[in-house]
């Protein structure tokens, strides 16, 4: 398969997944704020911090008001990671590989883009609580259409790889939102407010019901363990890494548990470390520090995929 084509399918999926996750972590924050007691200061700045694009936000908007941040993350056409920009990039990538992907995939990403574009033209921030669920659903639809209409060959695996790595990274960031928001004073831990916040967090990852089935009580440790180490829940980081690794090995042809390329090694190593980690160890080290390091390691995997498959130079 052409490197450019593989690269486009990979990014098509990353961008769709990214748009979905931006919708998710803005949504969790909206929900958290709704539950906050009146008078409590609204915390929006942490959202920008989790994207890692604070400098750009400062330069373009200055004040970290709710309105500015919502605009920045959803409809700002000049900010490359806003929902609208993600969809534009996803569509461009899809358009350049239309003869490789199924026409149903193209149609879905195209109507997804048109839906977001229309919302952006209207630009009503008060309608966002309807908009975010629509974005999530459109993204699920895309993933489902791809699953059901594209042959599960090399190109499909590149798409999976893109989607799962992106999701692992963004689940880590969603967890981080909680870290920034809480800055818990000791007295808050375990309070009803704290509990509500963890529930909102689970809901934002569509994880609330699945979590309940696994263990009744909602505890900080339980939630973080579920979202990081669970092997069966499709938005947990470890699930994403396991499935991403499976696709990577289908592409490279290397048996699982061994490595030949840099990507095999970087991803395999990360996945196996998580296999043997406990949540106690993570907490001991510091959740934020752990998530930060995880994101760096995921970037490293991405860089390896780029040099192993996409950036081929003739000898």
């Amino acid at each position, binding site marked *: 398969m*052409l490197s450019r084509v593989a690269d486009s399918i990979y990014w098509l999926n990353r961008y769709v997944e990214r748009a979905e996750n931006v919708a998710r972590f803005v949504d969790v924050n909206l929900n958290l704020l709704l539950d906050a007691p009146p008078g409590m200061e609204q915390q929006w700045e942490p959202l920008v911090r989790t994207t890692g694009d604070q400098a750009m936000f400062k330069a373009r908007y200055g004040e970290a008001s709710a309105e500015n941040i919502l605009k920045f993350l959803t409809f700002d056409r000049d900010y490359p990671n806003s929902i609208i920009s993600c969809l534009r990039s996803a569509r461009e990538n899809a358009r350049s590989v239309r003869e*490789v992907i199924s026409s149903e995939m193209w149609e879905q990403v195209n109507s997804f883009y048109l839906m977001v574009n229309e919302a952006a033209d209207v630009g009503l921030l008060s309608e966002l609580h309807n908009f975010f669920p629509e974005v999530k659903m459109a993204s699920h639809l895309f993933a489902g259409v791809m699953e059901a209409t594209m042959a599960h060959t090399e190109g499909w695996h590149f798409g999976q790889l893109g989607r799962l790595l992106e999701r692992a990274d963004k689940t880590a960031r969603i967890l981080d939102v909680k870290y920034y928001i809480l800055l818990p004073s000791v007295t808050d831990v375990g309070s009803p407010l704290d509990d509500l916040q963890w529930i909102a967090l689970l809901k934002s990852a569509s994880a609330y019901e699945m979590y309940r089935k696994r263990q009744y009580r909602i505890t900080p440790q339980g939630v973080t363990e579920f979202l990081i180490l669970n092997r069966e829940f499709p938005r947990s980081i470890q699930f994403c890494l396991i499935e991403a690794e499976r696709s990577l090995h289908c592409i490279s042809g290397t048996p699982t548990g061994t490595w030949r390329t840099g990507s095999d090694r970087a991803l395999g190593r990360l996945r196996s470390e998580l296999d043997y980690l406990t949540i106690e160890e993570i907490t001991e080290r510091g959740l934020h520090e752990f998530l930060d390091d995880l994101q760096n390691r995921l970037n490293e995997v991405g860089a390896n995929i780029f040099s192993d498959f996409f950036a081929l130079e003739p000898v």
Partner: protein
Amino acid sequence: MLFDAYDPGDFFDELFLTQGQPRPEADLLVKRVNALSLVDLQQRQQAAQNALFKLGVTFNVYSDNQGTERIFPFDVIPRIVPGHEWEWIEKGLKQRIYAINCFIHDVYNEQKILNDGVVPRHVVESAPGFLKPCMGLNPPNNIWCHITGTDLVRDKDGTWYVLEDNMRCPSGVSYVLENRRVMKNTFPHLFAAMDIAAVDDYASQLLETLLNLVPETLINPRVAVLTPGMYNSAYFEHSFLAQQMGAELVEGRDLVVSDGYLKMRTTKGLERVDVMYRRIDDDFIDPKAFRPDSLLGVPGLMEVYRAGRVALANALGTGVADDKLVYAYVPQMIRYYLDEDQIIPNVPTYLCEDATQQAHVLDNLDQLVVKATDASGGYGMLVGPHASEEQRADFSDRIRANPRGYIAQPTLCLSRVPTLIGDRFEGCHVDLRPYILYGQDIYVNPGGLTRVALKRGSLVVNSSQGGGSKDTWVVRSIDPNAQLPIQGGGVKE
């Protein structure tokens, strides 16, 4: 009864002899359409347009970076070519393509036709499409122009003429295929009752034409379509043809010359490309051999090509035959290489480089069409009768300054086909571009793209200038016992 009010007027109409009197091949179509209400027909028209948009049969508009795709307007009333007439056209096109191919091979090799003075040497050597680096090239089977889209027009008296040859990268064939697909849904009963020549094997024929270029010893040759990229106006077609043939769609940045071969960058390393259907002009294809500023091509490709390690369709250098001054000599080529008379005539052409003819052109600018010899697609031309005094003065100056650069032709009154505009039929001018493939034999796809000028009275049919398209039906016979629905019914029959 929609056609009752349609007046073909003082034009050659492709469907009607006179008002209320359809041509025999169009009779059934006219009956069928007359059985529909206006609303029904409009719905069918809308449904066809929607289907094309959904299929993604679009062209790109450069200046607009938000929603860059537009649909090429489509009209549901087809143009009909009677079978016997088509046989004659097919014969004429085969003759022409064969002769022009001989000519291209000759001018890049022995140059017999130039040495014999049949075509003046300076005409060829001054043509911008004549590429010195191609001298001595021997493409497989000596075939240069594998894919051609010849533009034909019909004058007021119904005479067919060849307007242009388009030997470089003619586009539009994807519309032929997709228009037909949509039309089968629009008028299924007519397709059942009439023997309309099928067009669907174009992609298979194209693939065979390309595979014909690799030596038989090569097992599993790799075929690729080279596109300038998704911002090109014909990108849909490049992508469509690659998909229909199962070929790889590549851009210049996917390709590299390595170990003396053309290779593409894949996730498993570099892989050889054996045949390439290139949709990039000669000038841009290799920055080392031609335009150094080109980012679209592949540095070093020319060397690989010259060594015979990759086949290109069309061959490099075919653009020489697109020059409008060279075009004027096609009758002589046919006589020279085939010892035959030209079947489909050229449009009478005045050569501005000849002093006498130039004087005539300058005296009659208000009646002639002047064309730059190196332009195409409706650019660089003056339609005398529709031009202002100023424009004509401007072209006079240009012709005097560069006589080699211009030819002139009489303004043809193009034939018309009824076209649904708003709530009625209007006669709109059309041309016809059949697609011809030269592989083992010469194959002419039956029909071709009928382009229609949708602006009232306009003679310009190009998509960039407000043109649309119609399906073209080559009708071989009609079932005399055909039963058609009398009433219109829903959107589909």
